[in-house]
């Protein structure tokens, strides 16, 4: 610009310069757009899709849990959960030209507080959060849901939405609470069967994808909540072996016992001794699974399977069968009861410290004589004691379908000193779960079979197909039927003549055993003044239908098993026997395989019915002559053979003949006289 005058031409040159700058800027933008749209377009496109896409997981109602007869124990229904989209509530308030924008959050909080039973301030602070999803209240009761709907419509409140969720209802409240367990938020089983069977019970998960705007509202149709498009899928129903009538009786008895004895805890179990099916299982302290959070976690514990204790005298029948099986004793073997016995540095006394002098081995069981058991134990020795205990399934979880089952504790025989060998015979120095103990007793009741207990009878798919069936599983044969029968007789005498008289039910033959064990302190050793009082038994003694265990942990006041646990056994079984129509033995005409024996002749055991021999899927028929119809029918039932009896009395003739191989379902004709 050395010229003195600035001309139009000069200005045009400057304009030209600016023009090129603008053109350059346009080109720059074009290149930049090429980069954004074409080079990174795919990535940014994904980003755009991601931010508008919302995936919602939904559950259809959780599967039902019912008892063996189809009585509902746990059911799920779909209920509505209320959530707020605070961004939507506060931003989409229409700023009218003249009217003052209303404080929607405040209005909503005011109206909803009484219905939801949440304070207005708490609601207001939720409604004014930054974000797009805040639960207001989950699982509204249906009547509350309707009121909320009404409030939303009347006040035109934006941003409040519902999601359907499956809510679990335990129809019988705390009944079998520890067995059933409970379900947490998001339909996940947290305890008990709900946990164990979570994958089966869990409602089918459906995933839905929505396009939503920046406030999380659905773009497609903002007037419908997503739940209305959900699919309905049903889930399997779980049938338990639990009989809710029996369960009700034991729950009642447990409540009563807890009140009377003031115990720290308790467990009751009823099992079918022939199949291993759990008919009732109760635990105290208990809780209501509908409101499980309101109870301490200790109440969730299923004491029938998840605690271990020293069984004490209820273990004696088991040790007794060891002695019988090893041929160390018979029912009549003379034993000298001295009242106390010294083993190495330890003195073991009877419960009252007095001795009976010379007595028979069956009296040792009948009167729960410690010294007699100790003598037997010492003869058995560590190796055999432990081997037998293992055979009986101790030291290892039973494998029932319930979670958190304990294994129990067994000595390593190499580490056992003489006093340990002696005390094991009286049920000390071994830790068992109530279920393990009852299962071992069941082996005595059923003639020697150690069963795997089960609690799931069947699982039925929505189409009626049975997808899983619980059935009898024999782990092993522990003792011979003869030994079992001998022990049954002894145990029957415990109730009829010995220490378990308090368990007697008029008219019924009951076999049982009481037990009172000192409680193991948590820090080791025994807790002074704390006992575990138990009773275990089965009824009817001759042909057991129900085996039951009662365990009271630290009862206050009376603490002997015969004083506190046996009466519970008696009271509950009495109700159950009447309810189930089990005829009293004394008026029952049908003789059992023991009935023809004269009293005192038990050592000369009746010839046990010869078992059917399996031949592949066929069966070899034995000689049934000399047996009664009932025993034969029980045997035939195992092979699903059909008995066609002629006459009454003892069998003397049969068709097909002995040694014939038949298929299941074949008719077996037997003549009696």
């Amino acid at each position: 610009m050395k010229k003195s005058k600035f001309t139009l031409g000069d200005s045009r040159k400057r304009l030209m310069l600016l023009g090129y700058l603008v053109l350059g800027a346009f080109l720059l933008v074009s290149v930049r757009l090429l980069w954004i749209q074409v080079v990174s377009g795919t990535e940014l496109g994904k980003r755009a899709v991601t931010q508008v896409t919302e995936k919602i997981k939904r559950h259809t109602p959780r599967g039902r849990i019912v008892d063996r007869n189809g009585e509902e124990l746990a059911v799920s229904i779909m209920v509505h959960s209320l959530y707020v989209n605070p961004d939507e509530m506060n931003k989409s308030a229409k700023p009218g030209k003249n009217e003052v924008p209303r404080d929607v959050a405040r209005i909503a909080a005011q109206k909803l507080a009484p219905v939801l039973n949440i304070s207005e301030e708490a609601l207001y602070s939720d409604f004014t959060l930054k974000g797009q999803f805040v639960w207001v209240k989950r699982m509204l009761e249906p009547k509350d849901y309707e009121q909320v709907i009404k409030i939303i419509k009347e006040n035109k409140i934006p941003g409040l939405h519902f999601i359907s969720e499956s809510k679990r209802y335990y129809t019988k409240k705390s009944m079998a609470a520890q067995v059933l367990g409970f379900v947490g938020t998001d339909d996940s089983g947290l305890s008990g069967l709900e946990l164990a069977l979570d994958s089966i019970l869990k409602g089918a998960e459906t995933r839905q994808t929505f396009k939503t705007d920046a406030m999380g509202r659905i773009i497609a149709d903002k007037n419908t909540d997503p739940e209305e498009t959900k699919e309905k899928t049903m889930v399997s129903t779980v049938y338990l072996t639990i009989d809710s009538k029996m369960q009700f009786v034991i729950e009642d008895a447990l409540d009563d016992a807890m009140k009377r004895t003031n115990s720290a805890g308790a467990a009751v179990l009823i099992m079918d001794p022939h199949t291993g099916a759990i008919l009732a299982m109760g635990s105290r302290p208990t809780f209501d699974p509908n409101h499980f959070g309101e109870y301490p976690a200790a109440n969730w514990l299923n004491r029938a399977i998840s605690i271990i204790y020293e069984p004490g005298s209820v273990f004696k029948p088991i040790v007794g069968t060891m002695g019988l099986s090893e041929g160390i004793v018979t029912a009549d073997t003379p034993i000298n009861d001295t009242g106390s016995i010294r083993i190495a540095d330890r003195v073991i006394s009877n419960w009252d410290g007095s001795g009976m002098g010379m007595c028979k081995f069956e009296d040792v069981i009948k009167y729960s004589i410690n010294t007699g058991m100790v003598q037997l134990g010492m003869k058995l020795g560590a190796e055999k004691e432990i081997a037998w205990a293992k055979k009986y399934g101790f030291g290892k979880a039973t494998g029932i379908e319930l979670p958190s089952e304990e294994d129990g504790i067994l000595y390593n025989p190499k580490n056992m000193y003489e006093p340990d060998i002696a005390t094991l015979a009286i049920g000390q120095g071994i830790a068992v779960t109530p279920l393990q103990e009852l299962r071992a007793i069941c082996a005595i009741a059923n003639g020697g079979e150690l069963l795997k207990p089960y609690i799931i009878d069947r699982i039925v798919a929505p189409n009626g197909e049975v997808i899983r069936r619980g059935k009898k599983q024999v782990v092993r044969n522990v003792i011979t039927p003869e030994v079992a029968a001998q022990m049954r007789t002894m145990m029957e005498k415990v109730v009829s003549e010995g220490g378990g008289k308090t368990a007697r039910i008029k008219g019924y033959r009951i076999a049982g055993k009481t037990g009172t064990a000192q409680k193991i302190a948590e820090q080791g050793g025994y807790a002074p003044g704390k006992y575990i009082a138990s009773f275990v038994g089965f009824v009817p003694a001759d042909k057991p239908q129900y085996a039951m265990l009662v365990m009271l942990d630290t009862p206050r006041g009376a603490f002997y098993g015969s004083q506190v646990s046996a009466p519970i056994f008696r009271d509950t079984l009495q109700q159950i026997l009447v309810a189930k129509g089990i005829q009293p033995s004394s008026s029952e005409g049908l003789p059992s395989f023991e009935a023809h024996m004269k009293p005192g002749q038990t050592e000369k055991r009746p010839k046990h019915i010869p078992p059917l021999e399996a031949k592949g899927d066929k069966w070899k028929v034995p000689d049934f002559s000399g047996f009664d119809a009932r025993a034969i029918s029980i045997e035939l039932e195992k092979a699903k053979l059909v008995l066609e009896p002629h006459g009454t009395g003892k069998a003397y003739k049969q068709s097909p003949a002995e040694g014939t191989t038949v298929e299941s379902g074949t008719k077996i004709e037997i003549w009696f006289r």
Partner: protein
Amino acid sequence: MRERFMLWENPKDAIITLMILLMVIGCINVFSASFVTADAMTDNPYHFLVRYIGYAAIGWIIFWVTGFRMNYKHLMSPRFYMVVAGVTILLLLATLGVGTVVNGSRRWIYIGGFSLQASEIAKVSVILMAASFLGDRLQRGLRVSLLGYPSNQALIMAGFFSLLIFLQPDMGTATIVFALMLAMYFLAGIPMRQISYIALIGLGVGLLAMMAPYRRARIALWLNPWKDAQGGGYQMAQSLTAIGSGGLTGLPWGQGSGKFFFLPEAHTDFAFAIFCQEWGYVGALFLIACFIVLARALFVIAMNTKDRRGYLLVAGSTLFLIGQSVANMAMVTGVLPVIGVPLLFISYGGTSLLTNMFALGLVVSVYRSESARELMEERIAAGLPPVEEGRLRVVSSQRNRRPF
């Protein structure tokens, strides 16, 4: 004249054709970008579309009156200069006084359901005042200087406008208004030394601004909005997401997700992002091409205008209309930091649409006047009387009929 197909005969027709084309695109895009917001705010998804069309109708009247029924020279008198300055200052003061606060700043005056953005008017005022004041000095061969009074009085006036706009506060528009006046001074012939001073001062101010950590943070976010895509970089990240998701050919019309409250100002300052999302790179290039053709038409008129005031009027309008548009595109694509400038005809904005139409009307007015002058000169050169049938007829000159 070559025999070839032409969309337009002369720059004026090109401008009108492109105005119609851009307005149609603008209508479609404003509707697509705004119907979600409109529905949420007023229950009427067509709210912004109807208003856009309404403003456009008024705009065409303004354009027709200024372009075809008025001589721009009437607006170039010193008295009118004072009127423009006075009215602009009054409007800006009124905005500060009775304006409605939106998003923390007072930018609009609401009159009977319509909003008036005085700062948009200030931009046109600057062009008018610069053309009138500086054009007169250029005509008389007087030097202009940024420092010497009275030649810097228009700059001082623009500085005052800027201050009032800055107080709204609207720093972006304040800068644009002042920069526009500086550009006019640049065209009016300020010495090179002062240009370098401006550059140095600009650099200094920029560096000084960088001292504040929050500004540094903003610059960092401009360079990489993904670092805080949910916070300070949200708008930019959303803009880039919208543009990028359009890809080469775009999403089906109306299917772009940006407008669903993801992208703030989707139908105003960031309308271009929505356009890119729904029309893709192909659409974006077409739109850019439209702007380049429009720019060239305006540029050709400026280059052929001999009247110094008319020349500055057209040059200023070109810089104003095209400069803002390219700045908007650069901002939306992240080339420039976010400054609130609208994209001509594509962004929704009532006042800005009217002022843009007015500025285009002025350009047409200058063009018509120059055509008449050229015709007159041709007639004189051909020995004909300067005015046919005793009256000035406006026809397009041979010279300007050539394709460009």
